[in-house]
């Protein structure tokens, strides 16, 4: 398996007023193509910061990130956005769907942003069938349950075939039944499409779905 993501000696320091607050203190990580990796650790240990760095939403104070052969840390802001658009799909704890759009509208928006004629109805149908959302396409987020909303968010993240899906506590806002459904979807995506997934979680049951667990504490991988 090829290495799809490599992070070397990542450091991130936040400036809060006149005080430097280190969030990551030299984290190195390699993820292979098709891996399902879980990141666990107590609150404030730097998990979310690392996910934001890996997704190009933040730039590291020090260190290097290479995604699918492209150096994220050397890229300009516009280039980083472009890499994120082409190679990364995000799933958030709070779903973050567009409330004014239907489920299908949210997916089509992702396709439009992706561009390059990304309107692929076959892919969309395939993803929706797998996530069992065929009959929810014309519903707006507020008309869906939490589990359904997260499945739409997951569909949106993978509809453009990203190299990596980054999930920030995707079951954090769900009850156990919906959590199980969503985790099952993550596993299925990983199995059927060989989708690389990096997921932050506090939930041991969610972590059990992952092939590999990375534990973090105080800005380090332990």
């Amino acid at each position, binding site marked *: 398996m090829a290495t799809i993501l490599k992070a070397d000696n990542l450091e991130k320091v936040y400036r809060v007023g006149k005080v430097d607050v280190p969030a990551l203190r030299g984290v190195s990580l390699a993820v292979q193509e098709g891996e399902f990796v879980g990141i666990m650790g107590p609150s404030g240990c730097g998990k979310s910061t690392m996910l*934001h760095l890996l*997704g190009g*939403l*933040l730039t590291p104070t020090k260190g290097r990130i290479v995604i699918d052969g492209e150096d994220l840390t050397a890229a300009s802001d*516009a280039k980083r*956005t*472009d890499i*994120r*658009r*082409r190679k*990364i799909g*995000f799933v*958030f704890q709070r779903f*973050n769907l*567009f*409330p*004014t*759009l*239907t489920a*299908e*509208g949210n997916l*089509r*928006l*992702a396709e439009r*942003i*992706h561009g390059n004629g990304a309107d692929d109805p076959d892919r969309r149908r395939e993803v929706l069938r797998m996530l069992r959302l065929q009959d929810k396409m014309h519903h707006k987020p507020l008309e869906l349950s939490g589990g359904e909303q997260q499945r739409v968010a997951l569909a*949106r993240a993978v509809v453009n075939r990203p190299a990596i899906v980054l999930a920030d506590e995707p079951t954090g806002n769900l009850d156990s039944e919906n959590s199980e459904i969503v985790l099952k979807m993550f596993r299925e995506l990983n199995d059927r499409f060989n989708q690389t997934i990096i997921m932050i979680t506090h939930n041991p049951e969610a972590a059990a779905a992952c092939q590999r667990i990375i534990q973090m504490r105080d800005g380090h991988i332990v």
Partner: protein
Amino acid sequence: MDSIVVSNLRQRPLRSAISILGVALGVALVMIFTGLAHGMSEDLQKRSSNVSAEIIFTRPGSMGITSSSANLSTKYVELLQKVEGVESATPVIRYFYSSGPWGVDQVDGVEWDSFSKMNNIQLIQGRAPAAPDEIVIDETKAARNHPVGSTLKVFGPGLYRVAGIYAPESGARAKMSLKALQDLLEAPDKCTFIYVKVKNPSDQVAVARRIDQAYPGNKVQPTRDLFASVETSIPGLSVFLRVLVGLAAIVSALVVMLAMHTTITERTREIGILKAMGASRIYIISEIEREALLISFLGLVAGFILAVLAGFGIHKATGLIFHFGAWWALTAALIGLLGGAVGAFYPAARAANLDPVTALSYE
């Protein structure tokens, strides 16, 4: 509905409606003011073009756009008729008066026989004014429910009886006898100007020069110059219209800017999501600009409808004439659209430069 632009407008209907109305008011303001200026100008020119006299003889400063005085002796009528090349001359008093809250109106005092003969004006109903409280009116005024025999208020406390209806329209829409108006104004043997018709129209310049030489100190003007466009004859009107257009553009831009600024503040988190999904700065700016342009376009359509309805209502209530020209409609359209696009640009650029992590954590 999977268009984020349209769905955003539908999601907040009241704010969308207020924004559209704001743009519409700016557009309607431009259309109404320019339509009124053009309408009145064209009406005046049309009425002036029906004057057959080639020369107007008057005193300097005795006639303005909305005021006049009767300070010219009617003795000049006889004197002018003796000038070589002059066919006929007829005196006129033009009197401007306040017509309610809507502005000024005018009435002409004429010697009907000589005036109508000189300018080929016919009475199509009734007869010429004879008594001091009689007037004749043109067809436009008659169409506003003033048939022959009816009475109407012109100026002063009394009512005037419509003795006849004349055509074509020329000068003031209401005319009374010169003597009656002289008596009312306590200006016996006076008039405002004298229309002079020349025997050979191609000699009018030479005739005007002879009149000027014979009676210096008075004003001798070709009628074609006097009745030029109102827009050019009223000092500052074109400047006023341009200032108005500029203000309308600023109002449109500010309304859209405020609307988009509020929208973006409310949707900070959504902008963070767009950024997380890989939306470029240009994409975010273009989405916001598209929304602003849609607001502006709807405001434009509403503004045109509002202007036409307002023009119709004002015309019905006051008789003021509107003419909505294509050029000003295009200008108003550009103002509405450009104002919206420019107004939205700052909030759009601000949104495009938001930090994605900060935006995602916005509550």
